[in-house]
């Protein structure tokens, strides 16, 4: 049971992160690399 639950959560999260990153890039938003300075990364549009 634990294998399915934890494994499912990990796989689900991984797919979610990948899809979200691709969608953000397609929209022309930055995926905020480390050291993001917000005002220049378009990140403020998301908050």
């Amino acid at each position, binding site marked *: 049971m*634990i294998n399915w639950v934890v494994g499912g959560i990990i796989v689900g999260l991984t797919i979610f992160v990948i899809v979200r990153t691709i969608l953000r890039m397609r929209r022309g938003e930055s995926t905020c690399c480390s050291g993001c300075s917000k005002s*220049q*990364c378009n990140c403020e549009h998301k908050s």
Partner: protein
Amino acid sequence: MSFRFALVGNPNCGKTTMFNEMTGSTQYVGNWAGVTIEKKEGKARKTKEDIRIIDLPGIYSLSPYSMEEIIARDYIINEKPDVIINIVDVTNIERNLYLTTQVMELGIPVVVALNMMDALEAKGDKVDISVLGKSLGVPVVCTSANKGHGISELLEKAIQVAQAAKGKAVLSDIKMYDEEIEKCISEIEKKLVSALKEKNVNPRWAAIKLLEGDEKAKERLNAKESLIEDIQLYQEKLEKHYDNDMETVIADNRYRFISDIVSKAVQKKFKGSELTLSDKIDKVVTHKILAIPMFLLVMFAVFQITFGAVGSFTIDWTDAFINETVAGFATTWLEAGGAAEWLKALVVEGIIAGLGSILVFVPQIMIMFFFLSILEDSGYMARAAFVMDRLLRKLGLSGKSFIPMLMGFGCSTPAIMAARTLENEKDRRLTIILTPFMSCGARLPVYALFTAAFFAQNQSLVIFSIYLLGIIVAILSGILLKNTVLKGEAAPFVMELPPYRIPTFKGLMIHMWDRGKGFIKKAGTVIFAASVIIWFCQSFSFSLTMVEDASQSIFGVVGTFIAPFFAPLGFGEWKSAVALLTGFVAKEAVVATMGILHGVGEVGEDSVELAAALQASFTPLKAYAFMAFTLLYMPCLAAFAAIKREMNSWKWTLFTVGYQTAAAWIVSMLIFQGGRLLGLN
């Protein structure tokens, strides 16, 4: 009621600090011009009314000479905010009031915020705000945005002004031009009222702009040809009278008006040509010969503190926490729950090892950005840009490129976007190609890991040399490209040196937290997903069966295939090849991959163990060549997307990443082969 207030002012007059104070945001603030390149919007806090605050890029005038000026002017004219809050740096009042004289003509209610009053008082100067307000014909409020002083009064005053205006145009009765010009303006104004197709602008502003011969305004106003010809007659008459072009005549009149106001309202303690403390410091830090060595020394000191005694204890602490406490807890919990071996391996050797190898460096990176923020907020970094501009211009490069390049030390993505401010297309392309050579924060964990393993005695010196290598390669590439594919004259660059300021603790904390948060956020998202995929690719074969020997895995096969490409550089084994491949997703993934592939993460093992594992396959020379390659090769996916967006061309995007990877290969090969010839290991 709901209102929109636009913050307008010169670059580096404190608009973003004011915006942050008003809205409670933590937008990036820097002590140099051009930090804000696009407008930002936020909701004012602590007010009953619904107030939207719009922070516009810093501009010197409303003449459309640069992209920032166009953005700001278009916003004001098209969106018509209820009130313009004109922020004036009171320590540089004459120049700042030039924009005020233009803003007053737009017909939109204006409130002037005399900002940086604390700095003015410290100089011993005084301003009579009642005289200033009366002369300008607009309300004036004193503020010190960095200390939060005067913000509530400013908002209250702006609300009062907005309520009084009720969205109608406010026409100033202040006449700042010569009688001759005023007469022409009022005659043109009368003609414009009936003739203008565009009804949404103040006729006086339109009259002045058309008289000045502002081409953008002509387009915007869409005036009839006959009217333009009529105005040209007035223009010619006045130009003949003043024996000068109209734009200069109008500017002269504005400055005369300002000078008259300032002489009545401002009392200066020191008059004459006495050098200020800022001037005295500048004489040393921007000295022709001493400036660059001094800059290098300062940067070296930052690295010394970060990677020396102060920074290294943080690694031991976080390492023990992640690889012992967290990994231990996860193992116990999974074993107690009866988890399968593969799940334990995925969580501990995949996710915790991958994320852990990066997160251990977060405190060290935050320390480095704390010191870099001190240099930036104090105004020293702007001097460094000025000094480097002198050097870059001698090499035929645009000095304006240096600002995006300086930002590239934080993150390449916003730095590439900041290249938008360069008007010259070739200079812009060149800056985009060169900026990723500046070592971004994401590469730091790679250097920290390798220097700890191979250069423990000279860690800061080696990391410093890697940063310098990036600058040198950027300069050499600039010269090469400027004389071949991107031939052309470098555009002139005028740079304003901001005053020296003592950095505020809050500002430093915001900068440091922003950087650290960026790392943690990325570790929790992109690096998490990357770690899962890396673990999967190193545990399973192409037939999707779990393998005991990682060299038989998907990564093992792919890595073995591409490894010969790296053999002349000294790291032609599959694990390094795969780590560099995953580095394209995010540079930190290089370290995460190393952690996972070398089996780090099992309880009891830590990054010190990873360092030992690396020593088995690298020598100091190979490690240095590997760090050089990581520094220079194609940037991460986010930066790649930014390059594509800003270049707006697949040809130039592929050229950029191709050039960077080729440069990385050549430089690393020269380091490794050259080092071997010199007998280094």
